[in-house]
């Protein structure tokens, strides 16, 4: 990650980085909608594949994006 990524914005109570957020949103929309559209056959398959796509996007995002939280236990810090 590049250095200037230390700038965040508060969206709904937590800090986010706009570039990471964009990646996550695009990925999630692509996989949910992609799963929904490309699913073979009738309902429930589009919905099932769409939800699976969303889950997959969520897992990928969680792996490639680091949470912007600094957890402090009592007085000592753990990263």
């Amino acid at each position: 990650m590049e250095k200037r990524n230390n700038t965040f914005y508060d969206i709904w109570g937590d800090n986010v980085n706009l570039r990471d957020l964009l990646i996550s949103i695009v990925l999630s929309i692509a996989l949910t909608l992609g799963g929904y559209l490309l699913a073979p056959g009738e309902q429930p398959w589009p919905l099932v594949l769409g939800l699976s796509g969303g889950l997959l996007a969520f897992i990928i995002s969680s792996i490639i994006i680091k949470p912007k939280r600094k957890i402090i236990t009592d007085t000592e810090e753990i990263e």
Partner: protein
Amino acid sequence: MDLTIILLMVLASIGGSVLYTIIGIAPGTDETAVLAPITLALILLNVSPYVVLAFFISAIVAKKLTDSIPVAIAGIPGGVMAAPMVEHAMVLKEHGMPDVSIRKMASGSVIGTIVSIPLSLLVASLIMPYASSISKHAGLIFFLGAVFLAFLSANKLLSLLMIVPFALLIQGLRHLYWDIGIVPEGTTVFVSFFLGITIGPIVYKLFELMNKDYREREKIIGEKEISFKNQKSIKGFPNPFTILTKKEVATSALGSSLGTLTFFLTPVGMTIFLGEFLTRHIKDPVQRASRAISTMDGLTNASYISGTLIPLIAIGLPLSPMAIGPASALFNAPPVFTPEHNIHHIMSMGEIVVATLIGATVALILTFYVTIKFSNEICAFVFKWVPHEALIGLFAGLVVMLAFMDAGWANIFGVMLVALVAGFLHRHGVNYGVMFMILYAAPWLIGLI
């Protein structure tokens, strides 16, 4: 109902509890966005209605038990419903008592569940004889609900003024979709508009952030610091009645009863109103906060359960904000369920009660235990590994997909429009509840003009 189906119901309840314990803790997860699509998928997959209902009840009980944990630990609401509790939980956190907060909230939740199930059955049997006249006047009831909640909003004038324009926006889009033929006439686009309102504040903020000057003003340097206090562990199985004081048990039970009786009003609005109202007289800030969070948690749980059960048992039409939002799939999930053929028609009152008890008991035992014992560990895991971006992304993906499912490509932009307006109104002090009530009342209201 035979043994196999009961076993399946228990298994589904365990699955629901585990899944929604995790989802509940994740910050910012909206109840409708996480409950409705998965329930809908189960129904469309032709899972037995008994199993679906047990799953759904365990899911809401588990989600309501856990969504207050991040509030207590970090002041981040785990869901829309937990937002009213932030202020009070922060008081306890500042006094170094987040662990007390968690136990009080979870215990309040348990009281809410225990109070609301029998009371919901009672209310359902009382209104059953009037079911048909109630459903005839649903539009008027929702409209009066919107007016009532407008008076409880931070910005009363704007809330009242926006009732008709917001209804016009909703009905305008629906009629447009019918006119250009993307939705067959009479099919009401609902779930995606509902989600549009819930993600309104996020969408509005994202649009604001597209402006460079705004970005300069709003930027935050450095990561969000979350202070964690390791809690003492409780030996043995935790007992909610010893965790709460007698007064707290009494107020949460009272709050839960009122929450059950007002099942037709929006749960967030009632939680804010009753939660504040019942604890306003207490002077000591710690005692007040502790009473408020146990009451509010009990109340949200109760209004969720009653909002699902009462319409399901008595009417068969989704006549509560809960039923029309997170639980909507139980009433309408074409082609499997329709308003004329859904769980209300398939299952008897006794069967609904059995499914509810199985779901609630499994969730209470599993989730309450886990919440009290391991809240720190689970929270640390979620905060450390689940980025906020991934959650917002998941949300965006679900909303876009459901918008497309409701009414095709055009509706993705329609929902964006609804979200922008809702986000603007929310920012300027219009209660979510007002907007939800308008959404329900819109067809009736515009029909009058």
